[in-house]
């Protein structure tokens, strides 16, 4: 429906934009006022000057920096690992001929439909056996390579890498791994950036498994926010200052790479 949109369209979109941003502003607003003002319901519309003092109190209440460090580490490691292994597997499914390729790919796609929380009990038992519960290793391991990543990379590489190129490199006597490294990997770069971003975000916002696997003293940021909220739920200035602070890293990511996020969602939607 390509027509020059009128005021109505822009108006509705603008209303949506306000609705998207308002809760975030509210969080910052309450976090920037004193405990007393925040407890009285609707504060003045402009922020007060207490954001940093509230944030400092929040940081003192929970192991905030440790949690941020843990989340950064877990998200970065898993995102890099997912990009590497999923690109390899996606390339194999997209460009290499081998026995059982079709059924194996169907299997990968089928695993995407399995609810993660179904296996949470045995996963916990397994991690206990290995002695990893309590350490962030237990949060990293399940995310090292994902079905979605394999499928996403496969869909991208099918069109991005010309078969002739792979064939030519093979005729030149390249080993398989070199073909991957010199032909497929450069072509996969745009999709790899998107996959990296999405994995980072998913792992950063994950809550259920880290809550089970990690102790209070060694949390990810989501688990730490959970502690913040449970102890001090009456002091919204403190809780919301901490929440706002914890949201900043992803907001920065959004400002820097929002364009790629949009592109990624719009690409991932195309089902093969």
């Amino acid at each position, binding site marked *: 429906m390509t027509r020059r949109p009128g005021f109505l369209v822009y108006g509705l979109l603008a209303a949506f934009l306000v609705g998207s*941003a308002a809760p975030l502003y509210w969080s910052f607003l309450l976090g920037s006022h004193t405990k007393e003002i925040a407890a009285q319901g609707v504060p003045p519309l402009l922020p007060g000057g207490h954001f940093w003092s509230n944030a400092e109190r929040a940081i003192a209440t929970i192991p905030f920096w440790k949690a941020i460090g843990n989340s950064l580490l877990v998200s970065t490691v898993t995102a890099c690992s997912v990009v590497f292994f999923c690109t390899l597997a996606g390339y194999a499914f997209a460009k290499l001929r081998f026995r059982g390729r079709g059924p194996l790919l169907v299997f990968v796609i089928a695993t995407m439909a399995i609810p993660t929380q179904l296996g949470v009990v045995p996963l916990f038992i397994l991690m206990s056996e290995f002695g990893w519960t309590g350490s962030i290793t237990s949060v990293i391991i399940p995310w090292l390579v994902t079905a979605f990543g394999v499928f996403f990379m496969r869909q991208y590489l099918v069109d991005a890498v010309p078969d002739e190129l792979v064939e030519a490199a093979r005729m030149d006597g390249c080993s398989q791994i070199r073909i991957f490294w010199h032909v497929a990997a450069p072509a996969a770069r745009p999709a790899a950036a998107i996959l990296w971003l999405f994995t980072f975000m998913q792992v950063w916002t994950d809550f259920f498994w880290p809550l089970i696997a990690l102790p209070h003293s060694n949390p990810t940021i989501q688990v730490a926010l959970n502690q913040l909220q449970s102890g001090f739920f009456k002091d919204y200035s403190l809780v*919301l200052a901490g929440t706002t602070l914890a949201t900043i890293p992803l907001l920065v990511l959004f400002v820097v790479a929002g364009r790629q996020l949009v592109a990624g969602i719009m690409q991932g939607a195309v089902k093969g």
Partner: protein
Amino acid sequence: MSNSTTSRGGGTQTVSSPREGSPSASGPTGRAPRPEWRQRLTRLDVRLSPYLYISPFFLLFLVVGMFPLGYTAWVSVHDWSLIGGKGEFVGLDNFREVLGNPYFTKQLVNTISIFLLSSVPQIVIAVVLAALLDNQLRGRTLWRMSILLPFVVSPVAVAIIFGSLYGDRYGLINELLGYVGIDPIGWHTERWASHVAIATMVNWRWTGYNALICLAAMQAVPRELYEAAAIDGAGRVRQFVSITLPMIRPTMIFVVITSTIGGLQIFAEPRLFDETNARNGGSDRQFGTITMLIYDFGWQLRDLGRASATAWLLFVVICAFGIANFLLIRRIGALGGDR
């Protein structure tokens, strides 16, 4: 990564820019037959490499996916404590206990209710929003980015922020309702009101995301169809119902199924919305969900057997809903008028 253990059947050519038949400066341009062992290695390389490349996924899935699935069944038919480990074989007792537990029924109803409140309006709004974005807008990318903003806020943070907005006594929402003369609503205490509050959080975070998925599908609709319909005298609404909706049906199925798998497992939002000390979903579990029950059985009551049984029951519910959704969407799409 020691993944480059594959043989180098390639001699010493570099493939910096693989143009066909670029003769290397040194070395013979005509291909001399390679020695026998080289050829064999190359063949092995070609045959085995694909399996090597896909093996990390399958190995990991075996350990953290496949094995836990089977093992959940094994745990669910035993007495299994979080601390003491495996106990007696008890057959279907865990399932019987869970199904007989009044909280199970209540929390299943809560889960479904929150799911419906958060998915039906969300998908309708997402489609409308996508239709708005499917115009020749000024600043297209900015609009698209802006509706995605909520998506980068974690469910935990969303729940804390909305928990304060929906404060029973001093929340912004009740204040605003007061201005139009409506009595304050007990968002945390009343069962259905709490479901609405929690559904709002899910909708706020996911609507933009799903709108972009729908938008991608809408942009793939050939524009000639709209032009032809316009010539036939179809208005915009008619075009939308008769062309757009049927054309984006596969994507709708995808969105609905993924929303179902995710939505029925909801945990972070209700847990952090809860301000009571037990945090099981309100004073009388008026907004407790099935996943919260799994957590309660397993890590508060320390009974992994019952937690596993609950997980299996949740899986059955998700499957049933997934299939029902699929059939429903097919029917709805078929009414769209693509005769």
